[in-house]
């Protein structure tokens, strides 16, 4: 398309080369052939083109991965809907959809700013810049260069996931206003601050902090076992402790009464969709897939590919262990156990998916499944009623995932994915720095989350706004709050129960 042939040489250089080759045509042709490396006026350069292509590929990668993370909402919705009784289905579906919507707005207004708004002036505790994406276009952002829209999008998908996890724990009896309050609290305040600590380049816990990392190491939480899952799971735990068990969940002797979900098909659909989405969650967390130097590109794509493999193996191991554990406990091949097991495996590998060996992934998943079963048993003894087992799964196994990374993070993989290079205590020479950071991380993130969510739910409880009335609970939330039932299986002539619009 170009009207003039691009040339590498300035006029002076061309003249000198003409003198050298003793032929103007040869010199011109020589300079034209060199032009792939650049031109005298800088208008063409393969290196610039390649850098732009890199950025394009990275954007595509991150957008696509973000979309996969987003599809996890469909998974959560189906899982939650299937695992509760049909009279409260609409309520939980509403919450899942609303989580995505509300977290989008919160993340836009202040979430991103608290988490990553720290270019040149943030502090180790919190970011303070680019509220409401202001000046996003014209200013730089943490990754340098123009504002990376795709990064905002990807991180939003994560925030939405954290916000939607507690819904399962408090299902079937939570007041809708209380639900509204906590979803805003998490996505606008609790979650972004934790992200800043653990993932931002200046965060005090961050392994990306190269100036003053904690214990010379920082905490390794690759895709968010602590940041996403512990925050969501522990909020759910505080919620279901303070709201109390569902009516009739425990009989007068304190023995649990089974309340099976209404559709195993939906549970499986939800599980498989979550599994699918996890391949955006974990491999996508490299944030880039190519870079401008060969060595960093290699680190990125090996890390991302490995994350897919360890995720698969951990989930598989946990599902099989959960199947066998369920067989021992109940004597039947339990579908719900297997589904929960697979999800537990994914939660347990999320922190370490980039830095664990495949065999370590099997251990993380398998042990995670046992911890999950033990926690569920303990919760029932303590009369904590968590319909979806969200707090054992995300809260407790999230912590386990962070911990196991402190033991088993492999040296050569840590070197690929992180700069500080402190690795697991199991490997000779690992030392306890990383493990110490992981423990500190678990404690601090746990305390922060429990404090804020506990405070919120306690205040709501004082004002008696946390729980619906027993009559409403008996009738089901769908009828009492949402104007109808989720299923209208009439074969007749439209004698449905909903008022027509």
């Amino acid at each position, binding site marked *: 398309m170009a009207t003039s042939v691009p040339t590498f040489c300035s006029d002076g250089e061309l003249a000198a080369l003409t003198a050298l080759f003793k032929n103007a045509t040869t010199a011109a042709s020589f300079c034209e052939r060199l032009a792939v490396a650049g031109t005298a006026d800088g208008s063409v350069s393969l290196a610039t083109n390649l850098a732009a292509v890199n950025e394009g590929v990275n954007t595509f990668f991150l957008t*696509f991965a973000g*979309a996969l993370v987003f599809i996890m909402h469909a998974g959560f919705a189906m899982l939650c809907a299937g695992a509760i009784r049909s009279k409260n289905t609409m309520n939980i579906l509403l919450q899942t959809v609303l989580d995505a919507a509300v977290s989008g707005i919160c993340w836009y207004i202040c979430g991103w700013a608290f988490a990553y708004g720290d270019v040149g002036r943030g502090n180790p505790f919190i970011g303070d810049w680019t509220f409401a994406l202001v000046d996003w276009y014209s200013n730089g952002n943490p990754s340098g260069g123009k504002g990376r829209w795709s990064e905002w999008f990807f991180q939003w998908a994560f925030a939405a996931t954290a916000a939607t996890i507690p819904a399962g724990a408090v299902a079937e009896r939570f007041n*809708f206003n209380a639900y509204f309050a906590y979803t805003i609290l998490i996505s606008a305040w609790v979650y972004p601050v934790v992200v800043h600590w653990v993932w931002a380049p200046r965060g005090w816990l961050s392994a990306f902090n190269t100036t003053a990392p904690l214990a010379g190491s920082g905490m390794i939480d690759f895709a968010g076992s602590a940041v996403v899952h512990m925050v969501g799971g522990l909020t759910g735990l505080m919620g279901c402790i303070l709201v109390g068990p569902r009516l009739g969940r425990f009989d007068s002797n304190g023995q649990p009464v089974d309340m099976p979900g209404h559709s195993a098909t939906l549970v499986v659909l939800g599980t498989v969709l979550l599994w699918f989405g996890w391949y955006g969650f974990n491999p996508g967390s490299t944030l880039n897939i190519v870079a401008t130097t060969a060595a960093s590109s290699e680190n990125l794509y090996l890390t991302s590919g490995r994350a897919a493999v360890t995720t698969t193996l951990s989930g598989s191991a946990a599902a099989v262990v959960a199947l066998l554990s369920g067989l021992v406990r109940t004597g039947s091949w339990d579908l719900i156990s297997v589904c929960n097991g697979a999800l537990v495996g994914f939660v347990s590998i999320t922190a370490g998916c980039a830095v664990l060996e495949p065999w370590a992934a099997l251990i993380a998943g398998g042990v995670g499944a046992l911890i999950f079963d033990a926690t569920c048993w303990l919760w029932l003894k303590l009369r904590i009623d968590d319909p979806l087992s969200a707090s054992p799964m995300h809260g407790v196994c999230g912590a386990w995932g962070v911990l196991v990374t402190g033991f088993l993070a492999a040296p050569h993989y840590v070197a690929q994915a992180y700069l500080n290079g402190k690795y697991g205590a199991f490997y000779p020479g690992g030392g306890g720095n990383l493990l110490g950071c992981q423990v500190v991380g678990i404690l601090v993130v746990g305390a922060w989350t429990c404090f804020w969510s506990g405070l919120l739910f306690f205040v709501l409880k004082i004002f008696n706004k946390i729980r619906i009335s027993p009559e409403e609970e008996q009738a089901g939330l769908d009828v009492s709050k949402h104007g109808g039932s989720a299923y209208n299986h009439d074969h007749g002539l439209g004698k449905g129960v*909903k008022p027509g619009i």
Partner: protein
Amino acid sequence: FAAPIHTSVGHVATRICVPNAMTKHQAGFACLCAGHVRVKNAGNILMKNVVDCSVGTLAWYLLGNGFAFGQSNGRANPFIGTGNFALNSVSFTGVDGEGYPQFFFHWAFSAAATTIVSGAVAERISFGTYMLYSCFMSSLVYPVVAHWLWTQWGWLSPLAAAPLFGSGAIDFAGGVVVHTVGGAASLIGVYFCGPRVGRFGIDGSPCRGYRENNSNLIVLGTFLLWFGWYGFNPGSALAVSTYSTAALVARTAVTTTIGAGTGGLSAMLIVYALTKKYDVMALCNGVLCGLVAVTPGCGVIDPWAAVIVAVLAAGTFIAVDHLMLKLRLDDVVSAVPMHLGCGALGTLCVGFFARQQYVEEVYGAPGPAVGRRWGVFFGGDGRLLACQVVALLSALCWVSALLVPYFWVARRLNVVRVPVEQEISGLDASKYGVLTTNELPTKPRTKRAGYV
């Protein structure tokens, strides 16, 4: 040499991966529609969605792709494409000849436009009429509008050598081409089909029980559609190989997200204000309205503008939905308010909110023959807005000109609806030999506690 390869890699990779997400769109429509119709007709609507995918593909392969994007000897006229039918002599090499991926991507778009109608006329249209309509839509109606707005020859296209009013109409991902066309076709279909038996009482007031059968399916469908939209909108950039297109792709993902979130929340709150119920259907519809409304402008507006557009869309949807019922137009899944109402609204909003630097990023800087115009609120002079209005009106005229006669003739021939007995017993049992839920009649009916 290396750089052009990467450019084409970007092209091909986007176009291959993106329609994957678009296929998810079909799954979304299927679930959404099956969730909305009464159980006795679920098989029928599912059937229509699968048929759209199949019959529509063949029509698109044989004719549609040629009318939309075809050329002969590098030329085409401003109104309609003229070559490359049945993928004949498409060039498959080089950066500009991504024949297969382009076919695949736009196939997914045309299937989306066609399927919109199936929900609106659900539960009563005859299968033959629908199948013929589906062919007609994907071979002629949709492709011509796509040609106008999305090719370098189209008379409305901003990519043209001399665009309309020096601007051309901006329809980034199909607010006119997909949604307005699909929505207008739905309106025509709904009008000519007439309401379902018993939908309106003798005094014209709507009867109960005609909406919503399975909220699980509706929510699943909503999420799948939302997911698919990340193929629909960001994928419309069609390449990610430079800084500006990369930023563009990502920005569309951001505006799409914010539009969906705001739309859902606003619709839910409006309905709460009206009925004091938190309504999951309103939320889901609102999400989809927000998505539809940001579609035409998602590449050229700011995040805050997406918030405004989505709020307006939620209001428009609810108002038009009520209006439809007042006019006794029975639109089973509210396709008209959603796709026509919000699609048109979004198209107009582009004329107000489009930002200069984004417009130039997407469509190129102004040249000697090619002007660039931007939104009225950013000091644009209204020419873009005028183009948007013209595009909207001409798309409406085109769809009406083709589909009104089609449905009119079908009604005169009395083949547009299934016989009333079949409608009452449900299409599944009478026509498809299946019930979607085979065990229902033998299972005890669900008890509806505390309700009459």
